[in-house]
């Protein structure tokens, strides 16, 4: 046919007639037969195309309704009469297998039938109002309602699925392939439910009960694990549980379920028990250095919220316990009776050493077991800071520790490791709040090392300084470096001076160390009476020095320096006869020595003494016997120092006393008299007279503290002036904040201290208050 002729004729719209009911019945009957044949898996006489046409005709003939309803009826009947009874025979093991087969078969058949009735889906379903489901979906609904929701089947299904999994958890072998298809079936059946959730049916029938059971299972097993195992074994078990569940999900459950199972595992196995795990395991693992196990524990706790916090807390707690124990050890040693000098020295060094050791231990733990976790590092650092700064004497102890190490030259450490140890020490220093106190002590200790030449290795000294410089800036170490420089220039100066005629004219072997004031923790001393011929040596040098440097003044530090004296002891034979009885009642005279002195011949010793002692001893060249009062007047040595000198000379070991003393009381009094001990003897030719250390170390402490306080006042003022000079006008609170920021590298300034300094500066006309606003400060230029 050609369309050319049709332009005149109207295109008639084809309106299909309604197929009459009888014809429709006929067609449906043959279709129904075909459907049953598919279910029964037998051949039918008509071809696929003929069936398709029948369905097409029925739908176009407005008999689709009959076809649709008929389809539902046939499927329902099939399910009720053919399928459901199958399950009644299926007992135990093969229930899931049966379901698998039935479901697979039903699925294929339904697809075949749907293809036969394809036109129903294409036309009838699409245009039907209200909307109806497609044939396949209806079939799924029917399967769900008639088979899976059928109470006995439903119960059995759940029971078998859960039972299989329970068995597998006990390491029984199960045919999980049927489980997998059951799950898939439930997923497929979920797709046609009216709920918006595409997993609704799966969740309802299987997942919900499964998760409940999982939770119960792990709740009980975790208790059992805990009771039976150590933390480390528990951790391993938990790892295994995770692995098992993961493999289970991989094989037959879906990812979503796995996520939910993991959540339960985390909750039941980890979160609920983590406190117990950490309490029971952490300390043990640390003490036995079980880094791998600690690592596992860390990884486990990482899985749950707050897990790492808990671990960090416990670690901090343990650390606090470890170091507070150190403190106890030390305070105990401190309170028990009188401390000998060695013990006093030992204490700070042991204290710092223990902190370093504990810090090492925790650093190792964090790097080897806790993945270098910054929050852990932070926690540990805070604990150390708290501890270190909790002890007011930490800055002093740290400096003493370094002093000890530098004097001994790090003998106990391999050379290659010295630098590492120094880094650790400086790291500890970093934690100190009162860096200025440390600096002061360090200066005191360093100056002693330098002046007495006690440093064993200059490179290490310099290394410490450069590390401190890196840490705190050049200004912090400027004076310390100045001290080293002074030593160098002094040595050069002496070389030069030795070649001058002035030097060779002197009969004493004289040398001097010239220090720059301010760099050293020393102050000019009040002058004392030094015998002229001795003083001359210094005065000659002083002239030479001042000639070289203009604008300077040079003061002898009489509390420093040392001398070597040739001392002659002639022995005596008179004294013991003259005063036998009184001596016995005076404990500090040397009666016992003198009793034999007539036998002792003249001996010569070299005494190494400090400058004060030198002056005192030289007095005995002129007079045989001197009272304390006389010595004080003659030498002008400060009373306290003179007492110490005389104590050192007359109160040591009996045979080692250079001077004899006669006095009433234990302490030296001004009427006490002194004379040479002719019975002095020593195995060595060179004898160093040790100064008695200040009896009370505690007495010394506040003076250093006081000096620090004074320095701080200056530093605070300097900071305030610097800030105000730059800012001109500033409010009180801003000034406090800025000063604190500037100063905190050295110490933590108390706001009250800053406030006092501001007031002081106002009095001294550096600053003034604003006329209107009392809280505003102006800088006065």
């Amino acid at each position, binding site marked *: 046919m050609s369309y050319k002729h049709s332009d005149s004729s109207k295109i008639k719209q084809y309106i299909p007639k309604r197929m009459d009911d009888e014809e429709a019945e006929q067609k449906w009957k043959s279709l129904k037969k075909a459907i049953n044949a598919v279910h029964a898996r037998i051949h039918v006489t008509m071809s696929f195309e003929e069936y398709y046409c029948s369905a097409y005709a029925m739908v176009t003939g407005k008999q689709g309704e009959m076809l649709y309803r008929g389809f539902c009826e046939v499927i329902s009947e099939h399910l009720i009469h053919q399928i459901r009874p199958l399950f009644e025979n299926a007992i135990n093991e093969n229930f899931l297998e049966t379901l698998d087969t039935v479901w697979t078969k039903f699925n294929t058949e339904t697809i075949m039938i749907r293809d036969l009735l394809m036109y129903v889906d294409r036309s009838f379903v699409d245009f039907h109002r209200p909307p109806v489901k497609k044939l396949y979906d209806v079939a799924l609904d029917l399967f769900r309602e008639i088979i899976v929701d059928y109470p006995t089947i439903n119960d059995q299904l759940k029971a078998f699925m859960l039972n299989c999994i329970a068995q597998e958890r006990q390491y029984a072998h199960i045919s999980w392939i049927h489980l997998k298809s059951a799950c898939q079936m439930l997923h497929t059946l979920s797709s046609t439910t009216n709920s918006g959730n595409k997993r609704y049916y799966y969740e309802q029938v299987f997942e919900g009960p499964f998760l409940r059971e999982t939770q119960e299972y792990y709740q009980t097993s975790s208790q059992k694990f805990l009771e039976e195992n150590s933390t480390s074994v528990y951790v391993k078990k938990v790892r295994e549980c995770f692995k098992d569940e993961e493999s289970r999900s991989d094989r037959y459950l879906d990812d979503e379920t796995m996520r939910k199972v993991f959540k339960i595992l985390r909750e039941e196995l980890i979160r609920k028990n983590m406190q117990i795990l950490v309490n029971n395991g952490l300390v043990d693992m640390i003490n036995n250095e079980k880094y791998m196990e600690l690592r596992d524990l860390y990884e486990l706790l990482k899985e749950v919220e707050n897990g790492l916090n808990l671990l960090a807390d416990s670690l901090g707690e343990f650390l606090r316990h470890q170091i507070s124990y150190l403190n106890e050890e030390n305070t105990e040693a401190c309170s028990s009776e009188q401390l000998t000098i060695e013990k006093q020295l030992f204490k700070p060094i042991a204290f710092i050493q223990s902190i370093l050791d504990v810090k090492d231990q925790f650093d190792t733990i964090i790097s080897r077991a806790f993945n270098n976790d910054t929050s852990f590092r932070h926690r540990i650092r805070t604990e150390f800071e708290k501890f270190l700064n909790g002890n007011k004497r930490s800055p002093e102890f740290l400096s003493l520790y370094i002093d000890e190490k530098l004097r001994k030259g790090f003998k106990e450490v391999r050379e290659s490791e010295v630098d590492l140890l120094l880094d650790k020490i400086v790291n500890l220093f970093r934690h100190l709040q009162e860096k200025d106190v440390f600096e002061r002590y360090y200066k005191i200790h360093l100056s002693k090392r330098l*002046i007495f030449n006690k440093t064993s290795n200059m490179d290490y000294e310099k290394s410490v300084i450069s590390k401190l410089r890196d840490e705190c800036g050049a200004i912090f170490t*400027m004076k310390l470096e100045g001290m080293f420089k002074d030593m160098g220039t002094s040595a050069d100066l002496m070389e030069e001076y030795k070649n001058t005629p002035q030097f060779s004219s002197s009969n*004493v*072997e*004289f*040398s*001097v*160390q*010239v*220090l*720059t*004031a*301010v760099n*050293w923790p020393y102050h*000019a001393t009040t002058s004392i009476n030094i015998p002229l011929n*001795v003083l001359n*040596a*210094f005065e000659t040098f002083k002239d030479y*020095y001042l000639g070289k*440097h*203009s*604008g*300077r*003044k*040079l*003061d*002898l*530090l009489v509390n*420093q*320096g*040392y*001398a*070597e*004296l*040739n*001392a*002659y002891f*002639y022995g*005596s034979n*008179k*004294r013991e006869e*003259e005063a036998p009885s*009184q*001596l016995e009642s005076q404990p500090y*005279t040397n009666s016992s020595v003198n009793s034999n002195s007539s036998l002792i011949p003249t001996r010569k010793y070299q*005494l190494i003494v400090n*400058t004060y002692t*030198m002056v005192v*001893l*030289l007095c*005995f*060249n002129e*007079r*045989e*016997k001197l009272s304390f009062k006389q010595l004080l007047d003659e030498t002008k040595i400060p009373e306290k120092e003179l007492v110490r000198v005389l104590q050192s000379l007359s109160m040591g070991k009996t045979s080692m006393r250079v001077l004899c003393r*006669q006095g009433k009381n234990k302490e030296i009094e001004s009427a006490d*008299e002194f*004379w*040479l001990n002719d019975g002095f003897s020593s195995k060595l030719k060179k004898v160093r007279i040790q100064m008695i250390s200040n009896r009370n170390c505690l007495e010394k402490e506040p003076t250093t503290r006081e000096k620090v306080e004074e320095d701080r006042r200056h530093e605070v003022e300097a900071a305030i*002036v610097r800030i105000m000079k730059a800012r001109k006008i500033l409010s009180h609170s801003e000034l406090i904040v800025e000063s604190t920021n500037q100063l905190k590298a050295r110490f933590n300034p108390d706001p009250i201290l800053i406030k006092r300094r501001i007031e002081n500066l106002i009095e001294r006309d550096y600053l003034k208050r604003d006329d209107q606003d009392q809280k505003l400060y102006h800088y006065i230029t």
Partner: protein
Amino acid sequence: MNESSPSKSPPKSENKLFTLKKWNAVAMWAWDVECDTCAICRVHLMEACLRCQSDSKAEDCVVVWGECNHSFHNCCMSLWVKQNNRCPLCQQDWTVQRIGQ
């Protein structure tokens, strides 16, 4: 009280008991100044002025004395005289008396 004293034994002045063999003294130098703070920068004269401290030239920061005997950091003063050739303390004309070394 003096019975036990050894005063009766003759003094051995011909042979001295102690003779000094060697003396290692320690001395400390400072600038010979009346006021130890620099009135210009308000830093102790024994320490370098702030400018030299921050340029780490502390070594070269010496002290200068005027004819009026007032003393300052040399570098502080040389900046000062550019603006005002008088001593900041006594207002006399500034002439250098000596420079420390």
